[in-house]
Protein backbone atom coordinates (compact mmCIF):
# COMPACT_ATOMS: atom_id res chain seq x y z
CA UNK A 1 0.00 0.00 0.00
CA UNK A 2 1.26 3.41 -0.89
CA UNK A 3 2.13 5.86 1.85
CA UNK A 4 -0.48 8.29 0.55
CA UNK A 5 -3.18 5.70 1.04
CA UNK A 6 -2.03 4.98 4.58
CA UNK A 7 -2.07 8.71 5.33
CA UNK A 8 -5.58 8.97 3.91
CA UNK A 9 -6.77 6.12 6.11
CA UNK A 10 -5.09 7.69 9.13
CA UNK A 11 -6.74 11.00 8.40
CA UNK A 12 -10.13 9.32 8.14
CA UNK A 13 -9.64 7.40 11.39
CA UNK A 14 -8.49 10.58 13.13
CA UNK A 15 -11.44 12.41 11.65
CA UNK A 16 -13.80 9.98 13.29
CA UNK A 17 -11.91 9.62 16.54
CA UNK A 18 -11.89 13.28 17.51
CA UNK A 19 -15.47 14.02 16.59
CA UNK A 20 -17.57 16.13 18.90
CA UNK A 21 -21.11 15.05 19.68
CA UNK A 22 -23.91 17.10 18.18
CA UNK A 23 -26.11 19.01 20.61
CA UNK A 24 -29.80 18.10 20.86
CA UNK A 25 -30.69 21.79 20.49
CA UNK A 26 -29.19 21.85 16.99
CA UNK A 27 -31.59 19.11 15.92
CA UNK A 28 -34.60 21.11 17.00
CA UNK A 29 -33.36 23.93 14.74
CA UNK A 30 -33.12 21.66 11.72
CA UNK A 31 -36.45 22.79 10.24
CA UNK A 32 -35.31 26.41 10.00
CA UNK A 33 -32.00 25.40 8.45
CA UNK A 34 -33.56 23.10 5.87
CA UNK A 35 -36.18 25.59 4.76
CA UNK A 36 -33.69 28.38 4.35
CA UNK A 37 -31.16 26.28 2.46
CA UNK A 38 -33.83 24.98 0.10
CA UNK A 39 -35.00 28.49 -0.70
CA UNK A 40 -31.40 29.62 -1.24
CA UNK A 41 -30.87 26.69 -3.64
CA UNK A 42 -34.07 27.54 -5.46
CA UNK A 43 -32.87 31.13 -5.71
CA UNK A 44 -29.68 29.94 -7.42
CA UNK A 45 -31.61 27.81 -9.89
CA UNK A 46 -34.01 30.68 -10.61
CA UNK A 47 -31.09 32.76 -11.86
CA UNK A 48 -31.71 30.97 -15.14
CA UNK A 49 -35.27 29.86 -14.46
CA UNK A 50 -35.23 27.43 -17.35
CA UNK A 51 -33.54 24.20 -18.31
CA UNK A 52 -33.19 21.69 -15.52
CA UNK A 53 -31.39 21.03 -12.28
CA UNK A 54 -30.95 17.96 -10.15
CA UNK A 55 -29.29 17.59 -6.78
CA UNK A 56 -29.43 14.28 -4.96
CA UNK A 57 -27.31 13.13 -2.06
CA UNK A 58 -26.94 11.75 1.39
CA UNK A 59 -24.29 11.87 4.05
CA UNK A 60 -22.22 8.79 4.67
CA UNK A 61 -21.20 8.49 8.30
CA UNK A 62 -20.40 4.84 8.87
CA UNK A 63 -19.50 4.84 12.56
CA UNK A 64 -21.99 5.13 15.40
CA UNK A 65 -19.37 7.07 17.36
CA UNK A 66 -18.82 9.64 14.62
CA UNK A 67 -21.81 11.90 15.19
CA UNK A 68 -23.00 11.06 18.66
CA UNK A 69 -25.86 12.92 20.26
CA UNK A 70 -25.23 15.14 23.26
CA UNK A 71 -28.40 15.23 25.32
CA UNK A 72 -28.95 16.34 28.87
CA UNK A 73 -28.36 12.74 29.96
CA UNK A 74 -24.98 12.29 28.33
CA UNK A 75 -23.58 11.18 25.00
CA UNK A 76 -25.53 8.68 22.89
CA UNK A 77 -24.04 6.51 20.16
CA UNK A 78 -25.86 6.75 16.86
CA UNK A 79 -26.08 8.30 13.45
CA UNK A 80 -26.87 11.78 12.22
CA UNK A 81 -28.16 11.73 8.69
CA UNK A 82 -29.20 14.02 5.88
CA UNK A 83 -30.96 12.69 2.82
CA UNK A 84 -31.93 15.23 0.23
CA UNK A 85 -32.95 15.89 -3.31
CA UNK A 86 -33.82 18.91 -5.36
CA UNK A 87 -35.23 18.68 -8.85
CA UNK A 88 -36.22 21.42 -11.23
CA UNK A 89 -37.48 20.87 -14.75
CA UNK A 90 -38.96 23.17 -17.31
CA UNK A 91 -40.46 23.07 -20.76
CA UNK A 92 -40.64 25.78 -23.35
CA UNK A 93 -44.13 27.11 -24.05
CA UNK A 94 -42.86 29.09 -26.98
CA UNK A 95 -39.52 30.56 -28.00
CA UNK A 96 -39.32 32.89 -24.98
CA UNK A 97 -41.60 31.41 -22.28
CA UNK A 98 -40.59 28.58 -19.99
CA UNK A 99 -42.82 26.93 -17.43
CA UNK A 100 -41.09 25.02 -14.68
CA UNK A 101 -41.86 22.76 -11.75
CA UNK A 102 -39.58 22.26 -8.79
CA UNK A 103 -39.45 20.02 -5.71
CA UNK A 104 -36.91 20.11 -2.95
CA UNK A 105 -36.91 17.54 -0.17
CA UNK A 106 -34.70 17.05 2.88
CA UNK A 107 -35.02 14.46 5.59
CA UNK A 108 -32.60 15.00 8.43
CA UNK A 109 -32.08 13.97 11.99
CA UNK A 110 -30.49 11.54 14.32
CA UNK A 111 -31.33 7.93 15.11
CA UNK A 112 -29.65 5.13 16.97
CA UNK A 113 -29.48 3.03 13.81
CA UNK A 114 -28.49 4.00 10.29
CA UNK A 115 -30.96 3.54 7.46
CA UNK A 116 -31.95 4.65 3.99
CA UNK A 117 -35.72 4.78 3.98
CA UNK A 118 -37.08 3.10 7.09
CA UNK A 119 -35.80 4.54 10.35
CA UNK A 120 -35.44 2.56 13.54
CA UNK A 121 -37.24 5.29 15.56
CA UNK A 122 -35.07 4.81 18.64
CA UNK A 123 -35.84 6.28 22.04
CA UNK A 124 -33.73 9.38 21.36
CA UNK A 125 -34.39 9.88 17.67
CA UNK A 126 -35.22 13.19 16.04
CA UNK A 127 -36.35 12.98 12.44
CA UNK A 128 -37.83 15.84 10.50
CA UNK A 129 -38.32 16.71 6.88
CA UNK A 130 -38.95 19.71 4.74
CA UNK A 131 -40.62 19.60 1.36
CA UNK A 132 -40.68 22.62 -0.91
CA UNK A 133 -42.44 22.67 -4.23
CA UNK A 134 -43.72 25.19 -6.67
CA UNK A 135 -44.09 26.44 -10.19
CA UNK A 136 -41.98 28.89 -12.08
CA UNK A 137 -42.45 31.01 -15.17
CA UNK A 138 -39.55 32.53 -17.07
CA UNK A 139 -39.65 34.93 -19.95
CA UNK A 140 -36.28 35.20 -21.65
CA UNK A 141 -37.26 38.21 -23.75
CA UNK A 142 -37.71 40.43 -20.68
CA UNK A 143 -35.31 38.29 -18.61
CA UNK A 144 -37.79 37.79 -15.78
CA UNK A 145 -38.66 34.82 -13.60
CA UNK A 146 -41.53 34.41 -11.19
CA UNK A 147 -41.98 31.39 -8.96
CA UNK A 148 -44.19 30.50 -6.07
CA UNK A 149 -45.12 27.46 -4.07
CA UNK A 150 -45.56 25.82 -0.71
CA UNK A 151 -43.20 24.56 1.91
CA UNK A 152 -44.12 21.78 4.32
CA UNK A 153 -42.15 21.17 7.46
CA UNK A 154 -42.95 17.88 9.12
CA UNK A 155 -41.71 16.50 12.38
CA UNK A 156 -41.62 12.77 11.90
CA UNK A 157 -40.44 11.95 15.38
CA UNK A 158 -38.89 13.83 18.26
CA UNK A 159 -38.35 11.83 21.40
CA UNK A 160 -40.01 13.58 24.32
CA UNK A 161 -37.20 12.36 26.54
CA UNK A 162 -34.60 14.79 25.27
CA UNK A 163 -36.19 17.32 22.90
CA UNK A 164 -38.48 20.22 23.70
CA UNK A 165 -41.95 20.33 22.20
CA UNK A 166 -42.06 21.43 18.60
CA UNK A 167 -44.85 22.30 16.24
CA UNK A 168 -45.62 19.66 13.70
CA UNK A 169 -46.84 19.89 10.11
CA UNK A 170 -46.16 23.54 9.50
CA UNK A 171 -47.20 24.94 6.17
CA UNK A 172 -45.31 27.88 4.72
CA UNK A 173 -45.65 29.54 1.37
CA UNK A 174 -42.99 31.25 -0.64
CA UNK A 175 -42.54 33.38 -3.70
CA UNK A 176 -39.56 34.37 -5.81
CA UNK A 177 -39.32 37.12 -8.38
CA UNK A 178 -36.35 38.01 -10.55
CA UNK A 179 -35.79 40.80 -13.01
CA UNK A 180 -32.42 40.52 -14.76
CA UNK A 181 -29.97 40.15 -11.89
CA UNK A 182 -32.15 41.43 -9.06
CA UNK A 183 -34.16 38.88 -7.09
CA UNK A 184 -36.64 39.16 -4.28
CA UNK A 185 -37.64 36.08 -2.35
CA UNK A 186 -39.95 35.75 0.63
CA UNK A 187 -41.48 33.00 2.71
CA UNK A 188 -44.47 33.30 4.99
CA UNK A 189 -46.24 31.43 7.72
CA UNK A 190 -49.89 32.44 7.79
CA UNK A 191 -49.75 36.22 7.64
CA UNK A 192 -46.26 36.69 9.02
CA UNK A 193 -43.07 36.62 7.02
CA UNK A 194 -40.32 34.15 7.88
CA UNK A 195 -37.58 35.34 5.55
CA UNK A 196 -37.28 38.12 3.02
CA UNK A 197 -34.26 38.04 0.78
CA UNK A 198 -33.04 40.62 -1.70
CA UNK A 199 -30.28 39.42 -4.02
CA UNK A 200 -28.17 41.42 -6.40
CA UNK A 201 -26.26 39.06 -8.66
CA UNK A 202 -24.12 41.70 -10.27
CA UNK A 203 -21.41 39.36 -11.48
CA UNK A 204 -21.61 38.76 -15.22
CA UNK A 205 -22.04 35.10 -16.08
CA UNK A 206 -21.68 33.72 -19.57
CA UNK A 207 -24.06 30.93 -18.60
CA UNK A 208 -26.89 33.47 -18.43
CA UNK A 209 -25.83 35.52 -21.44
CA UNK A 210 -23.14 37.62 -19.79
CA UNK A 211 -19.44 37.77 -20.44
CA UNK A 212 -16.83 35.28 -19.28
CA UNK A 213 -14.01 37.75 -18.65
CA UNK A 214 -13.45 41.43 -18.03
CA UNK A 215 -14.31 43.80 -15.22
CA UNK A 216 -18.01 42.85 -15.23
CA UNK A 217 -17.14 39.42 -13.86
CA UNK A 218 -15.61 41.08 -10.81
CA UNK A 219 -18.82 42.73 -9.69
CA UNK A 220 -20.04 41.31 -6.36
CA UNK A 221 -23.03 39.08 -5.69
CA UNK A 222 -24.83 40.49 -2.68
CA UNK A 223 -27.81 39.22 -0.80
CA UNK A 224 -29.47 40.46 2.35
CA UNK A 225 -31.92 38.25 4.21
CA UNK A 226 -34.22 39.32 7.00
CA UNK A 227 -34.92 36.39 9.31
CA UNK A 228 -37.84 36.42 11.65
CA UNK A 229 -36.81 35.04 15.01
CA UNK A 230 -38.33 35.00 18.45
CA UNK A 231 -36.26 34.85 21.59
CA UNK A 232 -38.26 34.26 24.74
CA UNK A 233 -41.36 35.58 23.03
CA UNK A 234 -39.78 38.83 21.87
CA UNK A 235 -39.00 39.71 18.31
CA UNK A 236 -35.34 39.11 17.61
CA UNK A 237 -35.21 39.61 13.86
CA UNK A 238 -31.83 39.89 12.22
CA UNK A 239 -30.33 40.47 8.81
CA UNK A 240 -27.71 38.26 7.24
CA UNK A 241 -25.63 39.79 4.48
CA UNK A 242 -23.86 37.47 2.04
CA UNK A 243 -21.17 38.73 -0.24
CA UNK A 244 -19.76 36.47 -2.95
CA UNK A 245 -16.82 37.91 -4.83
CA UNK A 246 -14.98 36.62 -7.87
CA UNK A 247 -11.25 36.95 -7.17
CA UNK A 248 -9.69 35.35 -10.22
CA UNK A 249 -11.20 34.34 -13.57
CA UNK A 250 -14.39 32.98 -12.00
CA UNK A 251 -12.49 30.06 -10.52
CA UNK A 252 -11.51 31.64 -7.20
CA UNK A 253 -14.20 33.15 -5.01
CA UNK A 254 -14.49 34.64 -1.58
CA UNK A 255 -17.76 34.23 0.27
CA UNK A 256 -18.33 36.28 3.39
CA UNK A 257 -21.39 36.68 5.60
CA UNK A 258 -22.26 39.15 8.33
CA UNK A 259 -25.14 39.29 10.79
CA UNK A 260 -26.77 42.59 11.68
CA UNK A 261 -27.46 44.30 13.95
CA UNK A 262 -25.72 42.42 16.77
CA UNK A 263 -23.37 39.62 15.90
CA UNK A 264 -21.25 41.02 13.08
CA UNK A 265 -18.90 38.68 11.25
CA UNK A 266 -20.45 35.27 10.69
CA UNK A 267 -18.37 33.28 8.21
CA UNK A 268 -15.82 33.50 5.43
CA UNK A 269 -14.84 31.01 2.78
CA UNK A 270 -12.29 30.85 0.03
CA UNK A 271 -13.49 28.63 -2.79
CA UNK A 272 -11.55 27.34 -5.74
CA UNK A 273 -13.34 25.75 -8.67
CA UNK A 274 -10.88 24.25 -11.17
CA UNK A 275 -13.44 24.96 -13.90
CA UNK A 276 -15.89 27.90 -13.72
CA UNK A 277 -18.82 25.53 -14.21
CA UNK A 278 -18.32 24.47 -10.58
CA UNK A 279 -18.55 20.76 -11.18
CA UNK A 280 -15.52 20.36 -8.90
CA UNK A 281 -14.48 22.49 -5.98
CA UNK A 282 -12.13 22.97 -3.07
CA UNK A 283 -12.87 25.31 -0.21
CA UNK A 284 -11.44 26.55 3.04
CA UNK A 285 -13.82 28.18 5.46
CA UNK A 286 -13.96 29.90 8.80
CA UNK A 287 -17.03 30.22 10.98
CA UNK A 288 -17.74 32.29 14.04
CA UNK A 289 -19.90 30.16 16.29
CA UNK A 290 -20.97 32.74 18.88
CA UNK A 291 -20.10 30.26 21.60
CA UNK A 292 -16.80 31.45 22.94
CA UNK A 293 -14.83 34.63 22.89
CA UNK A 294 -11.89 35.59 20.73
CA UNK A 295 -10.07 33.34 18.31
CA UNK A 296 -11.27 30.17 20.03
CA UNK A 297 -14.72 30.89 18.70
CA UNK A 298 -13.57 30.47 15.11
CA UNK A 299 -14.01 27.11 13.47
CA UNK A 300 -11.64 26.47 10.60
CA UNK A 301 -12.35 23.83 8.04
CA UNK A 302 -12.11 22.68 4.48
CA UNK A 303 -13.88 20.59 1.89
CA UNK A 304 -13.28 18.98 -1.44
CA UNK A 305 -16.06 18.36 -3.93
CA UNK A 306 -15.43 15.64 -6.50
CA UNK A 307 -18.73 15.89 -8.41
CA UNK A 308 -20.29 12.78 -6.87
CA UNK A 309 -18.42 12.80 -3.57
CA UNK A 310 -17.92 15.64 -1.15
CA UNK A 311 -15.55 15.38 1.80
CA UNK A 312 -15.86 18.11 4.38
CA UNK A 313 -14.17 18.80 7.68
CA UNK A 314 -15.47 21.56 9.96
CA UNK A 315 -16.82 23.58 7.07
CA UNK A 316 -19.54 26.17 7.48
CA UNK A 317 -21.89 24.09 5.34
CA UNK A 318 -21.42 20.95 7.45
CA UNK A 319 -21.69 22.87 10.71
CA UNK A 320 -24.98 24.42 9.69
CA UNK A 321 -26.55 21.52 7.85
CA UNK A 322 -25.30 18.64 10.00
CA UNK A 323 -26.38 20.00 13.38
CA UNK A 324 -23.15 21.74 14.37
CA UNK A 325 -21.03 18.71 13.53
CA UNK A 326 -17.36 19.38 14.02
CA UNK A 327 -14.13 17.51 14.47
CA UNK A 328 -15.14 14.83 12.02
CA UNK A 329 -14.81 14.10 8.34
CA UNK A 330 -18.21 14.10 6.71
CA UNK A 331 -18.60 12.32 3.42
CA UNK A 332 -21.54 13.10 1.23
CA UNK A 333 -22.36 10.99 -1.76
CA UNK A 334 -24.17 13.26 -4.15
CA UNK A 335 -24.75 14.48 -7.64
CA UNK A 336 -25.54 18.08 -8.44
CA UNK A 337 -25.93 19.13 -12.03
CA UNK A 338 -27.77 21.82 -13.93
CA UNK A 339 -28.54 22.12 -17.61
CA UNK A 340 -29.65 25.01 -19.75
CA UNK A 341 -29.96 24.23 -23.43
CA UNK A 342 -26.82 22.25 -24.21
CA UNK A 343 -24.83 23.73 -21.32
CA UNK A 344 -24.05 21.86 -18.12
CA UNK A 345 -23.04 23.44 -14.83
CA UNK A 346 -22.80 22.78 -11.10
CA UNK A 347 -24.66 24.60 -8.33
CA UNK A 348 -24.05 28.33 -8.63
CA UNK A 349 -21.83 27.94 -11.68
CA UNK A 350 -20.98 30.99 -13.74
CA UNK A 351 -19.89 29.41 -17.00
CA UNK A 352 -21.04 26.29 -18.81
CA UNK A 353 -18.88 23.20 -18.62
CA UNK A 354 -16.77 22.67 -21.72
CA UNK A 355 -18.63 20.48 -24.16
CA UNK A 356 -17.78 16.84 -23.77
CA UNK A 357 -16.33 15.52 -26.99
CA UNK A 358 -15.96 11.84 -27.63
CA UNK A 359 -13.16 10.84 -29.92
CA UNK A 360 -13.69 8.08 -32.41
CA UNK A 361 -10.31 6.61 -33.12
CA UNK A 362 -10.42 4.55 -36.31
CA UNK A 363 -9.17 1.05 -35.72
CA UNK A 364 -6.87 0.54 -38.69
CA UNK A 365 -6.58 -3.21 -38.32
CA UNK A 366 -10.32 -3.73 -38.45
CA UNK A 367 -10.75 -1.48 -41.45
CA UNK A 368 -7.97 -3.19 -43.37
CA UNK A 369 -9.33 -6.62 -42.53
CA UNK A 370 -12.81 -5.69 -43.63
CA UNK A 371 -11.50 -4.21 -46.83
CA UNK A 372 -9.44 -7.31 -47.57
CA UNK A 373 -12.49 -9.53 -47.08
CA UNK A 374 -14.51 -7.37 -49.39
CA UNK A 375 -11.90 -7.75 -52.07
CA UNK A 376 -11.61 -11.51 -51.67
CA UNK A 377 -15.27 -12.36 -51.46
CA UNK A 378 -17.43 -11.83 -54.45
CA UNK A 379 -14.71 -10.36 -56.57
CA UNK A 380 -15.85 -10.16 -60.13
CA UNK A 381 -13.85 -10.55 -63.25
CA UNK A 382 -14.63 -10.51 -66.93
CA UNK A 383 -13.89 -13.58 -69.05
CA UNK A 384 -12.81 -13.70 -72.70
CA UNK A 385 -16.42 -13.44 -73.95
CA UNK A 386 -17.02 -10.32 -72.00
CA UNK A 387 -19.30 -12.01 -69.41
CA UNK A 388 -19.06 -11.21 -65.77
CA UNK A 389 -17.82 -14.14 -63.74
CA UNK A 390 -18.29 -14.39 -60.01
CA UNK A 391 -15.94 -16.72 -58.31
CA UNK A 392 -17.36 -18.30 -55.17
CA UNK A 393 -14.81 -18.68 -52.40
CA UNK A 394 -16.96 -20.58 -49.97
CA UNK A 395 -20.17 -22.53 -49.88
CA UNK A 396 -22.90 -21.29 -47.60
CA UNK A 397 -25.53 -23.61 -46.28
CA UNK A 398 -28.81 -22.30 -45.15
CA UNK A 399 -30.98 -24.18 -42.73
CA UNK A 400 -34.46 -24.91 -44.01
CA UNK A 401 -37.13 -26.36 -41.78
CA UNK A 402 -38.87 -29.52 -42.88
CA UNK A 403 -42.22 -28.07 -43.81
CA UNK A 404 -40.80 -25.61 -46.29
CA UNK A 405 -40.37 -26.57 -49.90
CA UNK A 406 -36.92 -27.66 -50.91
CA UNK A 407 -37.16 -26.30 -54.43
CA UNK A 408 -36.55 -22.64 -53.84
CA UNK A 409 -33.00 -22.44 -52.67
Amino acid at each position, binding site marked *: MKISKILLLLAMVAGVAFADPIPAEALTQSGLVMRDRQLRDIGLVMRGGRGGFVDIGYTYTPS*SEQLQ*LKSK*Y*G*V*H*DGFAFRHHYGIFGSWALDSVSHLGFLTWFDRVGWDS*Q*DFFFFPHY*GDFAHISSSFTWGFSYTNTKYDVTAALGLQHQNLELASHKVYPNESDSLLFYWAHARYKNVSLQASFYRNTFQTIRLSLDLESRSLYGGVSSGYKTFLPNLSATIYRRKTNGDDDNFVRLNWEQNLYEQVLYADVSFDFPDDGFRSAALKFYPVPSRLLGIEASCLRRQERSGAKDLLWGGAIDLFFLRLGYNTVFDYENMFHAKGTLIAEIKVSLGKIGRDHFGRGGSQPAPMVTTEHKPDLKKILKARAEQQNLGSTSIDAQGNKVIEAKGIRYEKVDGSATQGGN
Partner: protein
Amino acid sequence: MKYLRLFICLVAISLTACMSHVFTDTTTRLQVENKTDVMILGVDIISEDGTSVQPWIRDAIEPGEKSKVVEEDWVGTFKVRVRWAKSVIQENRCESVLAKEASDKKTTEVHINKTSMTDCTIRWDDKSYVELDFEGGSQHLIVSQDEDGNVAFKLK
Protein backbone atom coordinates in the same frame (compact mmCIF):
# COMPACT_ATOMS: atom_id res chain seq x y z
CA MET B 1 -14.15 2.31 -17.62
CA LYS B 2 -12.04 3.76 -14.83
CA TYR B 3 -14.83 6.09 -13.74
CA LEU B 4 -17.44 3.36 -14.03
CA ARG B 5 -15.42 1.17 -11.69
CA LEU B 6 -15.06 4.05 -9.25
CA PHE B 7 -18.78 4.70 -9.43
CA ILE B 8 -19.63 1.05 -8.78
CA CYS B 9 -17.25 1.06 -5.79
CA LEU B 10 -18.99 4.14 -4.44
CA VAL B 11 -22.41 2.57 -4.80
CA ALA B 12 -21.20 -0.60 -3.07
CA ILE B 13 -19.67 1.37 -0.20
CA SER B 14 -22.71 3.58 0.13
CA LEU B 15 -24.93 0.56 0.61
CA THR B 16 -23.11 -0.02 3.87
CA ALA B 17 -24.54 3.28 5.09
CA CYS B 18 -27.62 1.43 6.24
CA MET B 19 -25.81 -1.64 7.48
CA SER B 20 -23.66 -0.51 10.41
CA HIS B 21 -26.33 -1.26 12.97
CA VAL B 22 -26.31 -4.91 11.90
CA PHE B 23 -22.80 -5.23 13.29
CA THR B 24 -23.10 -3.04 16.37
CA ASP B 25 -25.51 -3.15 19.28
CA THR B 26 -27.84 -0.20 19.46
CA THR B 27 -29.44 -1.16 22.77
CA THR B 28 -28.10 -2.20 26.14
CA ARG B 29 -29.48 -5.16 28.05
CA LEU B 30 -28.56 -4.35 31.62
CA GLN B 31 -28.51 -6.56 34.67
CA VAL B 32 -27.46 -5.16 38.02
CA GLU B 33 -25.95 -7.26 40.76
CA ASN B 34 -26.01 -5.92 44.29
CA LYS B 35 -22.95 -7.01 46.24
CA THR B 36 -23.37 -4.43 49.00
CA ASP B 37 -25.06 -4.80 52.33
CA VAL B 38 -27.73 -2.29 51.44
CA MET B 39 -30.79 -2.85 49.31
CA ILE B 40 -30.93 -1.07 45.95
CA LEU B 41 -34.33 0.32 45.06
CA GLY B 42 -33.56 1.05 41.44
CA VAL B 43 -31.07 2.32 38.90
CA ASP B 44 -31.74 5.50 36.93
CA ILE B 45 -30.09 7.63 34.29
CA ILE B 46 -30.11 11.24 35.42
CA SER B 47 -29.51 14.47 33.56
CA GLU B 48 -26.51 16.67 34.16
CA ASP B 49 -28.42 19.16 36.24
CA GLY B 50 -30.13 16.33 38.12
CA THR B 51 -33.62 17.56 37.32
CA SER B 52 -34.60 14.84 34.85
CA VAL B 53 -34.62 11.16 35.65
CA GLN B 54 -35.20 8.17 33.38
CA PRO B 55 -35.64 4.99 35.40
CA TRP B 56 -33.91 1.94 33.99
CA ILE B 57 -33.99 -0.84 36.57
CA ARG B 58 -37.19 -0.56 38.54
CA ASP B 59 -36.78 -3.67 40.70
CA ALA B 60 -35.61 -3.54 44.27
CA ILE B 61 -32.45 -5.60 44.50
CA GLU B 62 -31.73 -7.28 47.79
CA PRO B 63 -28.11 -7.56 48.91
CA GLY B 64 -26.49 -10.41 47.01
CA GLU B 65 -29.26 -10.55 44.43
CA LYS B 66 -29.40 -9.75 40.74
CA SER B 67 -32.00 -7.68 38.97
CA LYS B 68 -34.01 -8.67 35.92
CA VAL B 69 -32.47 -7.88 32.56
CA VAL B 70 -33.93 -4.68 31.14
CA GLU B 71 -33.28 -3.57 27.57
CA GLU B 72 -33.14 0.16 26.88
CA ASP B 73 -31.74 2.42 24.16
CA TRP B 74 -28.93 3.75 26.33
CA VAL B 75 -25.72 3.30 24.38
CA GLY B 76 -23.01 5.82 25.09
CA THR B 77 -21.81 7.63 28.18
CA PHE B 78 -24.40 8.50 30.79
CA LYS B 79 -24.79 9.49 34.40
CA VAL B 80 -26.08 6.61 36.46
CA ARG B 81 -27.67 6.99 39.84
CA VAL B 82 -28.45 4.20 42.24
CA ARG B 83 -31.40 4.59 44.57
CA TRP B 84 -30.51 3.11 47.92
CA ALA B 85 -32.83 1.97 50.59
CA LYS B 86 -32.32 3.55 53.94
CA SER B 87 -30.24 1.41 56.22
CA VAL B 88 -30.60 1.15 59.93
CA ILE B 89 -29.08 -0.91 62.66
CA GLN B 90 -31.59 -3.24 64.13
CA GLU B 91 -30.54 -5.62 66.84
CA ASN B 92 -26.89 -5.14 65.92
CA ARG B 93 -27.58 -6.11 62.32
CA CYS B 94 -27.42 -3.90 59.30
CA GLU B 95 -30.77 -4.02 57.59
CA SER B 96 -32.16 -2.22 54.64
CA VAL B 97 -35.58 -0.75 54.88
CA LEU B 98 -37.64 0.61 52.05
CA ALA B 99 -37.55 4.31 51.64
CA LYS B 100 -40.40 6.34 52.90
CA GLU B 101 -42.63 8.41 50.76
CA ALA B 102 -41.29 11.49 49.08
CA SER B 103 -42.72 13.76 51.74
CA ASP B 104 -39.79 12.96 53.94
CA LYS B 105 -37.05 13.87 51.53
CA LYS B 106 -34.15 13.27 53.83
CA THR B 107 -34.87 9.62 54.13
CA THR B 108 -36.21 8.71 50.74
CA GLU B 109 -33.50 8.65 48.18
CA VAL B 110 -29.86 8.64 48.88
CA HIS B 111 -27.90 9.64 45.82
CA ILE B 112 -24.37 8.51 45.93
CA ASN B 113 -21.29 8.40 43.91
CA LYS B 114 -18.11 7.81 45.83
CA THR B 115 -20.19 6.49 48.57
CA SER B 116 -18.80 5.00 51.67
CA MET B 117 -20.85 2.91 53.96
CA THR B 118 -19.68 2.18 57.44
CA ASP B 119 -21.78 0.95 60.27
CA CYS B 120 -24.82 1.15 58.09
CA THR B 121 -24.42 4.82 57.37
CA ILE B 122 -24.08 5.97 53.80
CA ARG B 123 -21.91 8.90 52.92
CA TRP B 124 -21.88 10.54 49.57
CA ASP B 125 -20.21 13.48 48.00
CA ASP B 126 -21.76 16.34 46.07
CA LYS B 127 -21.90 14.47 42.83
CA SER B 128 -24.78 12.12 43.20
CA TYR B 129 -24.04 9.95 40.20
CA VAL B 130 -21.41 7.85 38.51
CA GLU B 131 -20.63 8.22 34.83
CA LEU B 132 -20.61 4.92 32.99
CA ASP B 133 -19.83 3.99 29.40
CA PHE B 134 -22.40 1.57 27.98
CA GLU B 135 -21.13 -0.10 24.85
CA GLY B 136 -24.40 -1.80 24.02
CA GLY B 137 -25.34 -5.44 24.03
CA SER B 138 -25.54 -7.50 27.20
CA GLN B 139 -23.94 -5.68 30.13
CA HIS B 140 -23.59 -6.61 33.74
CA LEU B 141 -23.24 -3.90 36.37
CA ILE B 142 -21.81 -5.05 39.68
CA VAL B 143 -22.28 -2.71 42.58
CA SER B 144 -19.97 -3.75 45.37
CA GLN B 145 -18.57 -2.47 48.60
CA ASP B 146 -15.02 -2.79 49.86
CA GLU B 147 -13.82 -3.20 53.43
CA ASP B 148 -13.90 0.52 54.08
CA GLY B 149 -17.46 0.69 52.90
CA ASN B 150 -16.73 2.47 49.63
CA VAL B 151 -19.08 1.61 46.84
CA ALA B 152 -17.57 0.55 43.55
CA PHE B 153 -19.23 0.13 40.17
CA LYS B 154 -17.98 -2.40 37.70
CA LEU B 155 -19.49 -2.72 34.25
CA LYS B 156 -18.79 -5.92 32.36
